[in-house]
Structures are given as structure tokens and as C-alpha cells.
């Protein structure tokens, strides 16, 4: 497993909002060590039996939290992120969709300067099955096992997680890095963590059209990753010039095509699956080869 485990202490920024509250409850039910919420002006109250604090600094000081999951509206996300960093949080999981990209760029710079880690924005979060769920992923889909998963997508991660679990291929950790063009953790950093993680045997990378993060990941894999990697690219049949839901998912001027990404992966020895079920099948094949070797 990487980044989070059963001992990771988590606070929820925006815990009393409609979405924050619903998912705080889910995370607690899953067994995540949620230690408190933060909502300015609501300090001293409680949510789902946990204390609410006015500031992150106070929450961290009183609970020892190292991780914050952020459910605040998009224009408040930068401030919330700065507050988390300043309060001493070292892992920020930013669920918010629609954050202005210049705000994201500022937050990413601050996170790097502090040596902290940011997952997101516009992401489903992270899950180490059976230990900790931080974000909005449906916990019941995932089971503990040897597959490390990193994805730009939310629901497609659930789809492929489901296919893996149904096929008996549990997961070490699944990281949804988010679909925005500018974000915190990118593929290479997560891939390296999986490479170093003893539980992870096979890595699944879920990408999509647009940008060149997948091509860069392919180069990184060829150089640094010894474990087998299975990739899936969403948007193979997307028309050019149209943004497919995510701000980053667009084929423009012949760049960011699925074909270019598939070719880059194949050149790096990465097997590319065409459907979610095929991902599970290729993971199974890769694990068989590992056992034989």
C-alpha cells in the first residue's frame, strides 16, 4: 500500500456541507481514521460524533492529523489548501471540481515548496482497501490485493476496480489523481511509489485523451519501473476539438490522441487493454507470468 493506511489520521475541510457531511459519514463507516472536521464558525460543534474545529491549525494540533480531505466550493479551494499546508498537513486530498486552474497552479507550487503532497483537484481521492478510504470512492467495490492503480478518472476507476475485484484481483492502493490539466501528484510520482511498495505486484494506469502525461508516463516507466504495467486509455473514439467532460480531455491540433498514447505505452512494454474487463484479464496474465518467473 502507498500514501495511506489504517493509521492515517484524517480531517475533513468542509465536513458540515451537504457533500462533505455525507462522505464523512461514509468514510467513518468504512473505517477511515477520521479525527475531526473543519468549518469556520462551527468550531465546538460535532459531526457524526467527531469534533468540528474552526481552523485547520487547531484541528491538527488537537488531533495529530496528517491528512486533510477537502470538500469546499471551487473558489474557496485555494484558501483551504493554503490553510491545510500552513496547519501542518502533509497530504492534501482535494475533491473539489471546477477549481480555477491559476489557483491550482498556485497551490501546487506551495505544496512543492513545503514538501507536502497533493492529490487532485477534481479527483475521487484515494483508497487502500480494508484500511483507509479518503474521498468519494465507493468502498464496497475495492478489495485488498496486489494491484496498484493510478487514474485520472473517478467513475472509470470504480468501473475498472469493479472488473479487477470481480476477477479476484484485489488492490494495494488506488489513487485518483484527477482530470484537471494542472494537478498535484502526477503519474510518475505514483508509479515510483508503487514500484517501491512490496505489496504491489502489478500496476494499472488509467489515462485519457488530451495532454501528454501518458506519453511522459510511458517514458518514465521504461526507465524506472520494473513491475508490469497495464494501461487503459479512455476516449479512443472521441472526436477532435471537443472537450470530453474533463478540462484536460481534448484532442486538439492532432495532439493528445489515444493513438499516440497507446503507441508510447506499447513502445515502453506496457500492455494496453481495450475494455475494463480486459484490464482485469491482462492483470491476471501478468501475475501468472510473475509466479512462473
Amino acid at each position, binding site marked *: 500500500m502507498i500514501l495511506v493506511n489504517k493509521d492515517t489520521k484524517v480531517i475533513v475541510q468542509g465536513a458540515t456541507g451537504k*457533500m462533505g457531511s455525507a462522505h464523512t459519514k461514509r468514510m467513518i463507516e468504512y473505517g477511515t481514521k477520521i479525527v475531526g472536521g473543519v468549518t469556520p464558525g462551527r468550531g465546538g460543534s460535532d459531526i457524526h460524533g467527531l469534533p468540528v474545529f474552526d481552523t485547520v491549525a487547531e484541528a491538527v494540533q488537537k488531533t495529530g492529523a496528517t491528512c486533510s480531505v477537502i470538500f469546499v466550493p471551487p473558489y474557496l479551494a485555494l484558501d483551504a489548501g493554503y490553510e491545510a499546508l500552513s496547519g501542518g498537513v502533509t497530504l492534501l486530498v482535494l475533491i473539489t471540481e471546477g477549481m480555477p486552474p491559476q489557483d491550482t497552479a498556485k497551490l501546487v507550487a506551495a505544496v512543492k515548496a513545503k514538501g507536502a503532497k497533493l492529490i487532485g483537484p477534481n479527483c475521487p481521492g484515494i483508497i487502500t482497501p480494508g484500511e483507509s478510504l479518503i474521498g468519494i*470512492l465507493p468502498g464496497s467495490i475495492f478489495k485488498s490485493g496486489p494491484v496498484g492503480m493510478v487514474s485520472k478518472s473517478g467513475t472509470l*476507476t*470504480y468501473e475498472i476496480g469493479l472488473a479487477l475485484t470481480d476477477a479476484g484481483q484485489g488492490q494495494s492502493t488506488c489513487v485518483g489523481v484527477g*482530470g484537471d490539466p*494542472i494537478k498535484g501528484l502526477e503519474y510518475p510520482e505514483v508509479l515510483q511509489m508503487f514500484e517501491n511498495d512490496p505489496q504491489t505486484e502489478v500496476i494499472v494506469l488509467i489515462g485519457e485523451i488530451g495532454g501528454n502525461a501518458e506519453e511522459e508516463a510511458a517514458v518514465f516507466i521504461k526507465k524506472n519501473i520494473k513491475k508490469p504495467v497495464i494501461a487503459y486509455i479512455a476516449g479512443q473514439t472521441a472526436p477532435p476539438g*471537443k*472537450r470530453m467532460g474533463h478540462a484536460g480531455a481534448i484532442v486538439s*491540433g492532432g*495532439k493528445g490522441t489515444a493513438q499516440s498514447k497507446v503507441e508510447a505505452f506499447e513502445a515502453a512494454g506496457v500492455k494496453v487493454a481495450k475494455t475494463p474487463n480486459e484490464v482485469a484479464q491482462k492483470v491476471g496474465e501478468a501475475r501468472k507470468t510473475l509466479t512462473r518467473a
Partner: protein
Amino acid sequence: MAVRSARSDGTARPESVIGRATAERREDWTLDLYEYEAKRIFQDHGITVPPSVRITKPEELRKVHLGWPLTLKCQVLSGGRGKAGGIKFPKDLKEGEAIAKDLLALTIKGSKTESLLVEPRLSIARELYLAVVLDRAAGCPIFIASAEGGVEIESSHNVVTMPIPYPFHPFVGRELAQKLGLSGSLLTKVADVANKLYKLFESKDLDLAEINPLVITEGEDVIALDGKITVNDDSIHRQKYFEGWQEKHVSDLSHLEQRAKLADLNLVELDGNIGILCNGAGLTMATMDMVKAFGGEPGNFLDVGGGGDQKKTLTALEIVNENPKVQVILLNILGGITACDEVAGALVEFMAAHPERTMIVRLRGNNQDKAEQMLAKSGLKLFPDLEEAVKEAVAKSKVKQPVGAKA
């Protein structure tokens, strides 16, 4: 870094964008400004622009006192304005009025001329290119500049890029000007324009702020002769300045795509007959890809997004239903942030209104049990497996049906 689209008139329209970040932006989605709007913003931020008058009727030229010859420029949102004859230099009023009449009627690549911008002709010593974009790879805004702006920027070998680190400091503009080979008072003047361009890029939440060309006159004045601004879609609601501008500028979306946008849904219309409705961009793309892989033709891509409630889901269903080409609706929802019972509520309501519609539904995730109970009465078969659902939708899409979208 590919510099694209040469222009004889030095104008900068969508295909001229040379940064990776901007090249990826969806042209039919973001808010692109007209030249005169961009220049007004430049001027508000202290960047010198030529004196100008905007006209919408030829006879308004009579009230323009900028001397002759004049420059008349079509205000359009499409590219290739110069090549399409959208810029003229009449020598007197008589010629000016005749030309203005023609230009006002001109449509360039589907974009109607909104008005004409009238400016004096400048005596130009040299032209530069200057832009700020948010660069995806660098993860921060960058300057893109060239000492060979305006004409044939495509073939320029001197394109300079420079990251603009946070927090911003004006020395970055000076370093940029130096990299362009400038010195003396020109270095400080161009650096000043670059820094002002960054400041307006930041304060107005832009995806692109571009001056092309930035001209240096014989008197060493530095003037923005043409400009392009793209406003970031996610930030627009905190920019009071642009309130209400989207309706005026988003022109090349289809009727349904516009409706979807206003309902905060991501719709892309396609040519096939299977209407696709999912939650999440990746899942919607994957479902679309699978439909195609199993021999079907997607009629649309519709991403309801995260946390869609009953009302939003129902709107999405109605929008897909209105597409006359759609024969089968394939709904694939994996509830994470979206609750399955909200979707089920929308389905019950939709099917009561459109009992004739062929629906293939795959619904799994949070509150799935509740959703199944709600749908049990409707007789709708739920597919737990996506592949099975896609195969069934493709099979149903091949059945000849006399019924159109609106039965």
C-alpha cells in the same frame, strides 16, 4: 512547442494559439473575446493600444477623425481574418464606406462580422509576439514571446518561453525582454508591457492573453496592435467584468449543447443512434469507446458529472431524448458521489413520460439496493455488468424502429 498559423495581418485567432495549454482548450467552449474587447482590457491595464473607433454601420465612418488612410478590421471570433479579406486599408471616406459595407457583411469561417474596428495606420519599425498562457507541462503560467511577431510567426526560430513562478516579480519581464535581444529603453518598455500582460492574465482569470503583433513604432512607442483573450471557463463566475458575456460569445455550440451547458452538463453531439448518459468524463468516454468497439454508433457523449441529483439526471435524460437520431438510451451510472436512488427517481419519472423509449440501464454503487427497489416496479431490467449492457444497447440499436425520438 509548435507555432501554428501564419497570418498576413498579424491577427491572432483561435488557431494561432501557440502554447500547449491553450491549444488543448476547447474552442467551442471557452470564452474568446473580440479584438476590441481584448484591447479595452489591455488599455485598462496600462498597455498602449492604437486610438480606435468601433462601428456597426458604414456611415458611422463620417464621424471618425483619425485621418486617412485608415485600417478597417472585421471583428470576428474565427481565425484567418487577414487571409479571408477581413482587413482593408481604404484611402478616403468614399472608398471607406464602400469597403465597410462589404466587410460588415462578411462571414469568416462561420463567424459573422460583429462590427468593424477602425484605426489609423501606424508607422511600424518592428513587430514582436507576446503571450501569457497557463502551461500544463510547466504547471504554471508562462510567457511565450518572439522577436519576429506578427507576420509569419509560424516560421520564427526565435520563440522564447519563460515560466512565471509564484509569487510574481517584475524582473521576469525584464529577463524575457533580454532574451528577446532587446536593450536600452526598449528593454524596459517591452518588459513593462509583458508584466502588465501577466497582471491582467492573473487578475482576469484568463487562459490566454496574447498580443500579436506588439509593434514598436518609429518613435519607439510600444503598442498592442492586435490581441486575443480567452477567459477561463471555470473562473468566469467570479469575474464580474465578464458577467453575461458567455451567451453573446458562445456561438458554435448546437442548440442542445447550449442547453446542456446551461444545465451544467457536458454534452457532445455525435452521429450515431445510441444516446449515452453516464456520470464522470472517463466513464462516459469508456462507455462510448465500448459502444463503438461492439459495433454500435454513439449518438452523443453526455457526462452528468459528479453528484447529479434527480432533477439534473432527468434534464440529462430529456436532452438525450430530444436528439431525433437517438434510438436507444444507454445509461451507465456508477454511484460514488452520485447516489443511485437519485438516478432511479429520475428514471421512474422519465419512463412515465416516455414509455416508448428503449432504455438500457446499468446502475451500481452507493444506495444501489434502494434504487433497485424503486425500479423493480417499473419492469426495467438492470444490467450489473457494463459489457452486457453495451452489447444489449448495440443489439437494440440495430433493430429497425418506426418510432423516432418524439413518438
